[in-house]
Protein backbone atom coordinates (compact mmCIF):
# COMPACT_ATOMS: atom_id res chain seq x y z
CA UNK A 1 0.00 0.00 0.00
CA UNK A 2 1.80 3.14 -1.18
CA UNK A 3 2.19 6.05 1.20
CA UNK A 4 2.52 9.75 0.41
CA UNK A 5 3.20 12.72 2.65
CA UNK A 6 0.04 14.83 2.76
CA UNK A 7 1.70 18.10 3.61
CA UNK A 8 -1.16 20.20 2.23
CA UNK A 9 -3.39 18.91 5.03
CA UNK A 10 -3.72 20.57 8.43
CA UNK A 11 -4.89 19.09 11.70
CA UNK A 12 -7.36 21.14 13.68
CA UNK A 13 -8.83 20.32 17.04
CA UNK A 14 -12.24 21.63 18.04
CA UNK A 15 -13.21 21.58 21.70
CA UNK A 16 -16.25 22.80 23.61
CA UNK A 17 -19.83 21.70 24.10
CA UNK A 18 -21.16 23.52 21.01
CA UNK A 19 -18.75 22.03 18.47
CA UNK A 20 -21.21 19.68 16.74
CA UNK A 21 -23.87 22.37 16.31
CA UNK A 22 -21.22 24.87 15.26
CA UNK A 23 -19.74 22.76 12.44
CA UNK A 24 -23.14 21.45 11.35
CA UNK A 25 -24.42 25.02 10.96
CA UNK A 26 -21.51 26.02 8.75
CA UNK A 27 -20.94 23.04 6.50
CA UNK A 28 -22.60 21.06 3.74
CA UNK A 29 -22.92 17.59 5.23
CA UNK A 30 -24.93 16.42 8.21
CA UNK A 31 -22.61 16.56 11.20
CA UNK A 32 -23.69 14.12 13.89
CA UNK A 33 -20.82 12.46 15.57
CA UNK A 34 -20.96 8.85 16.48
CA UNK A 35 -18.11 6.79 17.81
CA UNK A 36 -15.37 6.04 15.27
CA UNK A 37 -17.26 7.45 12.31
CA UNK A 38 -15.63 9.86 9.88
CA UNK A 39 -17.69 12.73 8.46
CA UNK A 40 -16.51 14.48 5.30
CA UNK A 41 -17.94 17.96 4.92
CA UNK A 42 -17.24 21.25 3.17
CA UNK A 43 -17.20 24.83 4.38
CA UNK A 44 -18.39 27.23 1.68
CA UNK A 45 -18.46 30.97 1.27
CA UNK A 46 -21.58 33.03 0.45
CA UNK A 47 -21.20 32.17 -3.21
CA UNK A 48 -21.03 28.45 -2.38
CA UNK A 49 -17.35 28.25 -3.36
CA UNK A 50 -15.24 25.85 -1.33
CA UNK A 51 -13.32 27.42 1.53
CA UNK A 52 -12.13 24.07 2.85
CA UNK A 53 -12.79 20.38 3.20
CA UNK A 54 -12.99 18.87 6.67
CA UNK A 55 -12.57 15.18 7.46
CA UNK A 56 -13.97 15.04 10.98
CA UNK A 57 -14.01 12.50 13.77
CA UNK A 58 -14.54 12.49 17.48
CA UNK A 59 -11.64 11.56 19.72
CA UNK A 60 -12.43 11.53 23.42
CA UNK A 61 -13.71 15.02 24.27
CA UNK A 62 -12.38 16.59 21.07
CA UNK A 63 -13.33 16.73 17.43
CA UNK A 64 -10.37 16.36 15.11
CA UNK A 65 -10.45 17.73 11.59
CA UNK A 66 -8.00 16.87 8.86
CA UNK A 67 -8.47 19.99 6.81
CA UNK A 68 -7.46 21.00 3.32
CA UNK A 69 -8.02 24.52 2.08
CA UNK A 70 -6.65 26.73 -0.68
CA UNK A 71 -6.19 29.42 1.92
CA UNK A 72 -6.03 27.81 5.34
CA UNK A 73 -5.62 31.09 7.25
CA UNK A 74 -8.74 32.47 5.57
CA UNK A 75 -10.69 29.34 6.52
CA UNK A 76 -9.62 29.52 10.18
CA UNK A 77 -10.39 33.25 10.31
CA UNK A 78 -13.82 32.52 8.82
CA UNK A 79 -14.54 29.78 11.36
CA UNK A 80 -13.33 31.88 14.28
CA UNK A 81 -15.52 34.80 13.25
CA UNK A 82 -18.58 32.54 13.58
CA UNK A 83 -17.93 31.35 17.14
CA UNK A 84 -19.52 34.39 18.84
CA UNK A 85 -20.97 33.29 22.19
CA UNK A 86 -20.67 29.57 21.50
CA UNK A 87 -18.41 27.34 23.55
CA UNK A 88 -16.00 26.41 20.79
CA UNK A 89 -12.22 26.59 20.68
CA UNK A 90 -10.11 25.83 17.63
CA UNK A 91 -6.50 24.77 17.89
CA UNK A 92 -4.09 24.07 15.06
CA UNK A 93 -1.97 21.01 15.90
CA UNK A 94 -0.50 20.51 12.43
CA UNK A 95 3.04 21.15 13.61
CA UNK A 96 2.72 18.33 16.16
CA UNK A 97 1.79 15.67 13.62
CA UNK A 98 2.80 14.03 10.39
CA UNK A 99 -0.10 13.51 8.00
CA UNK A 100 0.18 10.81 5.31
CA UNK A 101 -2.10 9.35 2.67
CA UNK A 102 -2.18 5.59 2.22
CA UNK A 103 -3.88 4.60 -1.02
CA UNK A 104 -4.52 1.67 -3.31
CA UNK A 105 -5.55 -0.60 -0.46
CA UNK A 106 -8.97 -1.62 -1.72
CA UNK A 107 -12.23 -0.74 -0.06
CA UNK A 108 -11.83 0.53 3.48
CA UNK A 109 -14.21 1.48 6.25
CA UNK A 110 -15.14 5.10 6.79
CA UNK A 111 -14.01 4.71 10.33
CA UNK A 112 -11.34 5.79 12.73
CA UNK A 113 -8.91 3.24 14.04
CA UNK A 114 -6.02 3.75 16.37
CA UNK A 115 -3.06 1.52 15.70
CA UNK A 116 -0.37 2.04 18.35
CA UNK A 117 0.41 5.77 18.04
CA UNK A 118 -1.15 6.25 14.62
CA UNK A 119 -4.70 7.47 14.06
CA UNK A 120 -6.06 6.11 10.77
CA UNK A 121 -9.15 7.56 9.18
CA UNK A 122 -10.91 6.08 6.17
CA UNK A 123 -12.00 8.60 3.55
CA UNK A 124 -15.02 7.81 1.40
CA UNK A 125 -14.16 4.10 1.51
CA UNK A 126 -11.28 4.75 -0.89
CA UNK A 127 -8.11 5.77 0.95
CA UNK A 128 -6.76 6.45 4.41
CA UNK A 129 -5.26 9.44 6.11
CA UNK A 130 -2.84 8.67 8.92
CA UNK A 131 -1.84 11.04 11.68
CA UNK A 132 1.06 10.39 14.01
CA UNK A 133 3.23 12.48 16.26
CA UNK A 134 6.34 14.21 14.94
CA UNK A 135 8.07 12.78 18.00
CA UNK A 136 8.19 9.55 16.00
CA UNK A 137 10.24 9.26 12.85
CA UNK A 138 8.37 9.81 9.62
CA UNK A 139 7.16 6.59 8.01
CA UNK A 140 8.74 5.70 4.69
CA UNK A 141 6.74 7.39 1.91
CA UNK A 142 7.09 4.97 -0.98
CA UNK A 143 4.32 6.35 -3.17
CA UNK A 144 5.01 8.80 -5.95
CA UNK A 145 2.89 11.52 -7.48
CA UNK A 146 2.52 9.76 -10.81
CA UNK A 147 1.18 6.51 -9.38
CA UNK A 148 -1.08 8.47 -7.01
CA UNK A 149 -2.44 10.49 -9.93
CA UNK A 150 -3.10 7.35 -11.98
CA UNK A 151 -4.80 5.73 -8.99
CA UNK A 152 -6.98 8.84 -8.58
CA UNK A 153 -7.92 8.78 -12.23
CA UNK A 154 -8.91 5.10 -12.02
CA UNK A 155 -10.98 5.69 -8.89
CA UNK A 156 -12.54 9.04 -9.87
CA UNK A 157 -11.16 10.94 -6.91
CA UNK A 158 -11.12 14.73 -7.22
CA UNK A 159 -8.07 16.41 -5.71
CA UNK A 160 -6.86 19.75 -4.48
CA UNK A 161 -5.41 22.10 -7.09
CA UNK A 162 -6.73 19.81 -9.81
CA UNK A 163 -10.50 19.59 -9.50
CA UNK A 164 -10.97 21.18 -6.07
CA UNK A 165 -10.23 24.85 -5.47
CA UNK A 166 -11.80 27.92 -3.90
CA UNK A 167 -13.20 28.97 -7.27
CA UNK A 168 -15.62 26.03 -7.59
CA UNK A 169 -18.60 24.76 -5.65
CA UNK A 170 -19.08 21.09 -4.65
CA UNK A 171 -21.17 20.32 -7.72
CA UNK A 172 -18.46 21.62 -10.02
CA UNK A 173 -15.68 19.37 -8.79
CA UNK A 174 -17.15 15.95 -8.02
CA UNK A 175 -17.78 16.54 -4.31
CA UNK A 176 -21.57 16.62 -4.56
CA UNK A 177 -21.74 13.51 -2.37
CA UNK A 178 -20.62 15.67 0.56
CA UNK A 179 -23.72 17.86 0.25
CA UNK A 180 -26.59 16.67 2.43
CA UNK A 181 -29.76 17.49 0.52
CA UNK A 182 -32.14 17.59 3.46
CA UNK A 183 -30.27 19.43 6.16
CA UNK A 184 -31.11 22.96 7.24
CA UNK A 185 -29.45 26.20 6.30
CA UNK A 186 -25.70 26.62 6.00
CA UNK A 187 -23.63 29.12 4.08
CA UNK A 188 -24.03 28.57 0.35
CA UNK A 189 -27.02 26.25 0.74
CA UNK A 190 -29.48 28.38 -1.25
CA UNK A 191 -27.21 28.35 -4.29
CA UNK A 192 -26.62 24.59 -4.15
CA UNK A 193 -30.34 23.88 -3.72
CA UNK A 194 -31.13 26.06 -6.72
CA UNK A 195 -28.52 24.25 -8.82
CA UNK A 196 -29.94 20.90 -7.79
CA UNK A 197 -33.58 21.70 -8.35
CA UNK A 198 -32.89 23.30 -11.74
CA UNK A 199 -30.29 20.67 -12.58
CA UNK A 200 -28.06 23.47 -13.75
CA UNK A 201 -24.27 23.74 -13.56
CA UNK A 202 -23.76 20.30 -12.06
CA UNK A 203 -20.66 18.53 -13.29
CA UNK A 204 -19.76 14.88 -13.20
CA UNK A 205 -16.25 13.54 -12.83
CA UNK A 206 -15.43 11.01 -15.52
CA UNK A 207 -12.34 9.09 -16.51
CA UNK A 208 -11.45 8.65 -20.19
CA UNK A 209 -8.59 7.20 -22.15
CA UNK A 210 -6.13 9.80 -23.37
CA UNK A 211 -6.56 10.63 -27.04
CA UNK A 212 -4.44 12.91 -29.18
CA UNK A 213 -7.51 14.52 -30.74
CA UNK A 214 -9.19 15.25 -27.41
CA UNK A 215 -10.72 18.72 -27.51
CA UNK A 216 -11.59 19.29 -23.88
CA UNK A 217 -8.82 19.73 -21.37
CA UNK A 218 -8.54 17.19 -18.55
CA UNK A 219 -8.55 18.38 -14.96
CA UNK A 220 -6.08 15.63 -14.07
CA UNK A 221 -3.78 14.21 -16.73
CA UNK A 222 -2.93 10.55 -16.11
CA UNK A 223 -0.48 8.47 -18.11
CA UNK A 224 -3.14 6.45 -19.96
CA UNK A 225 -6.41 7.86 -18.75
CA UNK A 226 -7.37 11.31 -17.46
CA UNK A 227 -10.09 12.94 -15.38
CA UNK A 228 -12.59 15.31 -16.92
CA UNK A 229 -15.41 17.32 -15.43
CA UNK A 230 -18.42 17.28 -17.71
CA UNK A 231 -21.88 18.71 -17.33
CA UNK A 232 -24.29 16.00 -16.30
Amino acid sequence: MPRLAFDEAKALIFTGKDVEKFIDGLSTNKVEFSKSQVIDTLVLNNKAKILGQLHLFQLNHMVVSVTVADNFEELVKYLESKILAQEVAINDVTSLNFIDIVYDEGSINKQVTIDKDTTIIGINGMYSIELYSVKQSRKHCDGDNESFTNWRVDNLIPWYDYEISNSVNPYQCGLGYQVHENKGCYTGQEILTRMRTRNKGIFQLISRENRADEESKPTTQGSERSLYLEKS
Partner: protein
Amino acid sequence: MDCGTCESASPVVVQTPEVVNVDLTITENAHSMLDQAFGEDRSMALLVGVLSGGCSGYMYDLQIVEDTEIDCQELSISGFRILVPNSSSHLLNGIEIDYEDRLMGGGFKINNPNAQSSCGCGESFA
Protein backbone atom coordinates in the same frame (compact mmCIF):
# COMPACT_ATOMS: atom_id res chain seq x y z
CA MET B 1 -1.73 11.54 16.89
CA ASP B 2 -0.49 14.33 19.07
CA CYS B 3 -3.47 16.45 20.06
CA GLY B 4 -1.47 19.01 21.99
CA THR B 5 -3.47 18.59 25.15
CA CYS B 6 -0.51 17.43 27.19
CA GLU B 7 1.14 19.79 29.64
CA SER B 8 3.88 20.82 27.23
CA ALA B 9 1.41 22.11 24.65
CA SER B 10 0.60 25.77 24.37
CA PRO B 11 -2.85 26.75 25.63
CA VAL B 12 -5.77 26.96 23.24
CA VAL B 13 -6.22 30.49 21.98
CA VAL B 14 -9.83 31.59 21.78
CA GLN B 15 -10.43 34.62 19.62
CA THR B 16 -12.92 37.06 21.13
CA PRO B 17 -14.58 39.64 18.92
CA GLU B 18 -14.26 43.33 19.69
CA VAL B 19 -17.02 44.63 21.97
CA VAL B 20 -18.71 47.83 20.81
CA ASN B 21 -21.38 49.91 22.50
CA VAL B 22 -24.53 49.09 20.60
CA ASP B 23 -26.91 51.72 19.39
CA LEU B 24 -30.19 50.40 17.98
CA THR B 25 -33.62 51.71 17.07
CA ILE B 26 -37.12 50.25 17.08
CA THR B 27 -39.72 51.22 14.49
CA GLU B 28 -43.28 52.15 15.44
CA ASN B 29 -44.60 48.83 14.11
CA ALA B 30 -42.08 46.87 16.15
CA HIS B 31 -42.87 49.04 19.17
CA SER B 32 -46.59 48.17 18.91
CA MET B 33 -45.86 44.47 18.63
CA LEU B 34 -43.46 44.52 21.57
CA ASP B 35 -46.10 46.41 23.56
CA GLN B 36 -48.54 43.57 22.88
CA ALA B 37 -45.97 40.92 23.68
CA PHE B 38 -44.74 42.44 26.94
CA GLY B 39 -48.01 43.95 28.19
CA GLU B 40 -47.60 45.85 31.40
CA ASP B 41 -44.71 43.72 32.57
CA ARG B 42 -41.51 45.48 31.63
CA SER B 43 -39.30 43.29 33.78
CA MET B 44 -38.86 40.97 30.81
CA ALA B 45 -36.26 41.80 28.17
CA LEU B 46 -35.85 41.34 24.45
CA LEU B 47 -32.61 39.49 23.76
CA VAL B 48 -31.28 40.36 20.33
CA GLY B 49 -28.46 37.99 19.45
CA VAL B 50 -26.63 36.42 16.56
CA LEU B 51 -25.90 32.75 16.00
CA SER B 52 -23.56 31.24 13.45
CA GLY B 53 -25.12 29.37 10.55
CA GLY B 54 -27.95 30.10 8.18
CA CYS B 55 -27.65 30.62 4.45
CA SER B 56 -25.36 33.61 4.80
CA GLY B 57 -23.23 32.68 7.80
CA TYR B 58 -24.99 34.47 10.67
CA MET B 59 -28.57 34.19 11.92
CA TYR B 60 -30.53 36.60 14.08
CA ASP B 61 -31.84 35.27 17.34
CA LEU B 62 -34.69 37.11 19.09
CA GLN B 63 -35.94 35.91 22.45
CA ILE B 64 -38.02 37.32 25.26
CA VAL B 65 -36.18 36.49 28.45
CA GLU B 66 -36.28 37.39 32.09
CA ASP B 67 -32.54 37.19 32.41
CA THR B 68 -29.64 35.47 30.71
CA GLU B 69 -26.27 34.01 31.60
CA ILE B 70 -24.82 35.42 28.39
CA ASP B 71 -22.52 38.40 28.87
CA CYS B 72 -24.75 41.21 27.58
CA GLN B 73 -25.09 44.95 27.45
CA GLU B 74 -28.49 46.23 28.52
CA LEU B 75 -30.22 49.07 26.70
CA SER B 76 -33.44 50.82 27.56
CA ILE B 77 -35.29 51.89 24.46
CA SER B 78 -38.82 53.29 24.56
CA GLY B 79 -39.26 51.69 27.95
CA PHE B 80 -38.20 48.22 26.78
CA ARG B 81 -35.23 46.32 28.18
CA ILE B 82 -33.05 45.19 25.28
CA LEU B 83 -30.18 42.77 25.85
CA VAL B 84 -27.38 42.47 23.30
CA PRO B 85 -24.65 39.84 23.80
CA ASN B 86 -21.20 41.43 23.82
CA SER B 87 -19.93 38.62 21.59
CA SER B 88 -22.15 39.80 18.74
CA SER B 89 -22.22 43.53 19.52
CA HIS B 90 -19.92 44.27 16.55
CA LEU B 91 -22.53 42.76 14.23
CA LEU B 92 -25.54 44.52 15.74
CA ASN B 93 -24.46 48.11 16.22
CA GLY B 94 -26.77 50.46 14.31
CA ILE B 95 -29.55 47.96 13.61
CA GLU B 96 -33.21 48.85 13.29
CA ILE B 97 -35.78 46.38 14.61
CA ASP B 98 -38.87 46.46 12.46
CA TYR B 99 -42.10 44.46 12.30
CA GLU B 100 -43.77 43.53 9.03
CA ASP B 101 -47.45 42.63 9.23
CA ARG B 102 -47.84 40.14 6.40
CA LEU B 103 -49.45 36.74 6.17
CA MET B 104 -46.38 35.22 4.57
CA GLY B 105 -42.86 36.11 5.63
CA GLY B 106 -44.07 38.60 8.20
CA GLY B 107 -42.75 39.13 11.70
CA PHE B 108 -39.82 40.95 13.23
CA LYS B 109 -37.18 42.07 10.75
CA ILE B 110 -33.74 43.42 11.40
CA ASN B 111 -32.36 46.10 9.14
CA ASN B 112 -28.64 45.83 9.63
CA PRO B 113 -26.15 48.33 8.18
CA ASN B 114 -23.32 45.88 8.95
CA ALA B 115 -24.78 43.17 6.69
CA GLN B 116 -23.11 42.85 3.31
CA SER B 117 -25.82 40.47 2.14
CA SER B 118 -28.90 38.71 3.46
CA CYS B 119 -30.65 35.52 2.47
CA GLY B 120 -34.14 35.51 0.98
CA CYS B 121 -36.00 34.98 4.24
CA GLY B 122 -34.13 37.80 5.97
CA GLU B 123 -33.14 35.67 8.95
CA SER B 124 -29.57 35.19 7.85
CA PHE B 125 -26.89 37.71 6.91
CA ALA B 126 -23.20 38.01 6.16
